[in-house]
C-alpha cells in the first residue's frame, strides 16, 4: 500500500499562481513564466507513489525542485494544484487540500522531518531539542524527556543530553536531528539533504547508521539528495528531477542501467557501479556460452583460455565442472556467507542477484569464474570480462530487460 501518493502535483511560488498554472499548461518554460508573472515553478506535474517501508530518494541538481516537492508533503510548501495523499492511520489524507487543523495533526503525528543544516534550536539542550516535537504535541515534561532519552540512546548520544547543540560536532548535531524526527514515532520521515553539510567520512557513517536504523524501524522515508552515490546506496526507489519535473522514477539499478535521458546518464557516468549493479546485469547468460558437445553432452565453455567447461542436466542444473579435462569441486556461497571461508580453486555457485563488489571479491578469492544460479538452475557466468565491461561503463549496451 502506498504511504504517500503524489498525483499531478504542481508547486508554484508567487502571487499569480492561477496565471502561472495556465502558462504552465500552455507549455511555457520556467524562465518564460518568471518573466511574465514573476512566479517560480518549483514542481511541475509530479506523480509518484511511495510504498510503505520504502526509501524514496529525490535526486537532482540544486533548483531542480526536489526540496520543493519534499516540503509539499508536509505542507511547508503549498501545493498549487493536484492531490497529495498521505497515509493517516487507515485512511489517506490529501494534505494539498486540507484545513490547518488536519495539517497540524499530520505534522505532529504522521510526518516528521530532518533538515540539511540541522535546524536545532540553539538555546535548547540536546534533550530538549529531541523532545521539541513532543512538546508541540503537548506531551508533559516527564514523558517527553523519557521518550527523548530513549531516542538519544539509539543514536548513542545519551551522554550529551544536557549539552547545547553548539557544543556538538556537525555529525552529532545531525544525529540529534535524526533523533528528534524519530522520537515523533511517525511512519513517514522527510529528509532534506540531511548529510550534505557533513564531511565525507561522517556522511558515510551516518548513511550506514540510517540504513541500519531503517532495517529495524521500517519507516517510509523520502530523502532528498544531490549525490547519486548516496541515492544509490540508501534508496530503494530513486526519482530524478530536472527543472521542476520528475524525469525518471525507478529502482537504483534501472537508473544506472537504463538512464531515461542524457541528463540522467550524465549523473550515472560519474557514479561507482560497484555498489549498484547486480550479477544478472553483468553476466554472460547461459545461452551466450558456446556449446561444446565434443567433450560432454550439454557442456558449455566458461573460459576457453583456462579450458573450463560446465555440464548441465535437462533442468539446467549444474552437473559437473571441468578444468583442463579434470573435474573440480563445486561450492555454494549464500548472501550472508563470509567469503574468506570459501575454498580457493573451486567453482562457486552464487545467487543471481549478487552485488558486483561481492562478486569481484569472490572471483579474487577463488581465482575462478563464478556461476550464477536461481532455484538451482544455472543462469549465467561472471568472469573478469564481465567486471571490466561494467567498470568501463559499457553495460549501458547490454539488454537488461531480457536477462532479468
Amino acid at each position, binding site marked *: 500500500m502506498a504511504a504517500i501518493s503524489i498525483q499531478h502535483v504542481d508547486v508554484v511560488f508567487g502571487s499569480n499562481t492561477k496565471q502561472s498554472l495556465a502558462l504552465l499548461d500552455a507549455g511555457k518554460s520556467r524562465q518564460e513564466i518568471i518573466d511574465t508573472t514573476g512566479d517560480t515553478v518549483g514542481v511541475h506535474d509530479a506523480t509518484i507513489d511511495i510504498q510503505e517501508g520504502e526509501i524514496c530518494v529525490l535526486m537532482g541538481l540544486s533548483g531542480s525542485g526536489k526540496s520543493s516537492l519534499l516540503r509539499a508533503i508536509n505542507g511547508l510548501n503549498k501545493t498549487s494544484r493536484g492531490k497529495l495523499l498521505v497515509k493517516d492511520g487507515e485512511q489517506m489524507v490529501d494534505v494539498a487540500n486540507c484545513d490547518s487543523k488536519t495539517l*497540524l495533526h499530520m505534522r505532529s503525528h504522521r510526518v516528521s522531518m530532518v*533538515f540539511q543544516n540541522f535546524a536545532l534550536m540553539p538555546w535548547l539542550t540536546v534533550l530538549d531539542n529531541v523532545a521539541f516535537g513532543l*512538546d508541540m504535541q503537548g506531551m508533559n515534561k516527564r514523558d517527553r524527556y523519557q521518550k527523548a532519552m530513549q531516542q538519544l540512546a539509539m543514536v548513542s548520544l545519551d551522554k550529551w543530553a544536557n549539552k547545547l547543540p553548539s557544543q556538538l560536532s556537525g555529525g552529532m548535531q545531525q544525529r540529534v536531528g535524526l533523533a528528534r524526527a524519530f522520537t515523533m514515532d511517525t511512519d513517514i520521515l522527510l529528509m532534506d539533504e540531511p548529510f550534505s553539510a557533513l564531511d565525507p567520512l561522517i556522511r558515510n557513517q551516518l548513511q550506514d547508521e540510517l540504513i541500519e536504523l531503517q532495517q529495524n524501524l521500517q519507516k517510509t522515508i523520502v530523502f532528498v539528495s544531490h549525490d547519486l552515490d548516496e541515492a544509490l546506496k540508501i534508496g530503494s526507489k530513486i526519482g530524478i528531477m530536472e527543472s521542476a519535473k520528475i524525469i525518471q522514477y525507478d529502482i537504483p539499478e534501472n537508473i544506472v542501467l537504463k538512464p531515461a535521458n542524457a541528463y540522467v546518464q550524465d549523473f550515472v557516468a560519474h557514479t561507482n557501479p560497484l555498489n549498484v549493479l547486480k550479477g544478472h546485469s553483468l553476466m554472460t547468460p547461459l545461452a551466450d556460452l558456446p556449446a561444446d558437445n565434443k567433450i560432454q553432452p550439454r557442456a558449455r565453455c566458461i573460459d576457453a583460455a583456462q579450458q573450463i567447461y560446465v555440464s548441465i542436466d535437462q533442468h539446467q542444473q549444474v552437473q559437473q565442472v571441468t578444468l583442463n579435462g579434470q573435474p573440480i569441486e563445486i561450492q555454494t556461497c549464500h548472501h550472508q556467507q563470509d567469503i574468506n571461508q570459501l575454498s580457493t580453486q573451486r567453482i562457486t555457485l552464487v545467487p543471481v542477484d549478487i552485488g558486483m563488489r561481492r562478486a569481484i571479491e569472490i572471483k579474487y578469492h577463488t581465482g575462478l569464474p563464478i556461476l550464477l544460479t536461481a532455484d538451482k538452475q544455472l543462469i549465467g557466468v561472471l568472469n573478469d570480462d564481465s567486471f571490466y565491461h561494467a567498470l568501463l561503463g559499457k553495460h549501458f549496451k547490454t539488454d537488461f530487460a531480457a536477462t532479468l
Partner: protein
Amino acid sequence: MDWIIEHKIPIGSWMESLVDWLTDNADFIFDAISVSLEWLILNIVGLFVWFPPFVPMLATAALAWFLHKSISLVIFVVVALLLILNLGYWQEMLETFVLVLTATTISIAFGVPIGIAAAHKPWLYTILRPILDLMQTIPTFVYLIPTLVLFGLGVVPGLISTIIFAIAAPIRLTYLGISRVPADLIEAGRAFGATPFKLLYKVELPAAMPSIMAGITQCIMLSLSMVVIAALVGADGLGKPVVRALNTVNISQGFEAGLAIVLVAIILDRIFKAPNAKEEG
C-alpha cells in the same frame, strides 16, 4: 518666490488646533491617565522610601549576584549605592529609578508586541518606520509642550515624554530579532506541528531573545537619559537637583547629582546588559 513666502502652510497651527481639540474633547481621558499613573508612581516610590535604605541595596546586590555570579559587580553595586546615600540623593535616586522602571515597563509592554506584529506584517513596519524615526529625531522639548498641556505639570508628562523617546528601541530591536530568526528554525517549528502561537513563544521569541534584551537595555538607558528633561516639567528625581543647579549656577550640586545619575546608569546597565552578552558568547 514671493508667492511661496506669502502663502505659509499653517502646519504649526494645525498641530495646535489638534492639541486644543484634544484638551477640549478628550480631557477626561488624559486626566484619568495622568491621575492613575501619578498615583501608581507615587505609591511605588513611597513603598521604596518606606524601606530602610539597606533593603533595596541588598536586593539590588542579590539580583546582581543572581544574574551574574560576579563578586566584583556586587561590590560595585553596594559601594555605588552607599555613595549615593552619602551624597544625600537616596530618595531622588529611588524616584528616578521608579520613573525609569515605569517608563521601561510600559515601553516593553507596548513595544515588544508592536515589534512582533511589525515583523509578521511587513506593511505595518512600512507605516511604523517613519513614525519611529520621527519619535527619535524630533527634539524632546518639542513634544514636551503638548504633553505638558495634555497631562498637566508633574511626573506624568515626564513619563510620557520618556516613553515616546524610549519606546522606539524595543520596537525596532524586537522587530529586528523576530524578522531575523533563521528560516530553517521556523520551518523546523512548523514541520513538527507548531501552531502559530507556539511557534511564536517556543521558537521566535527565544531565538530573538538576545535582540529583544538588547532593546530592553537600550530602553532603560534612553529612559535614564531623559531624567533631566523630565525634571523640567516637574518630575521628581535626580533630574531636579541638576535643573536647580543649572538655574543657580551651583557647580558642586550639579556635579554630585550628575555623578549619582551616572552611577544609577552603570548599575542598571551592568545588571541588565550582561546576561545576553554571555549567551551570545
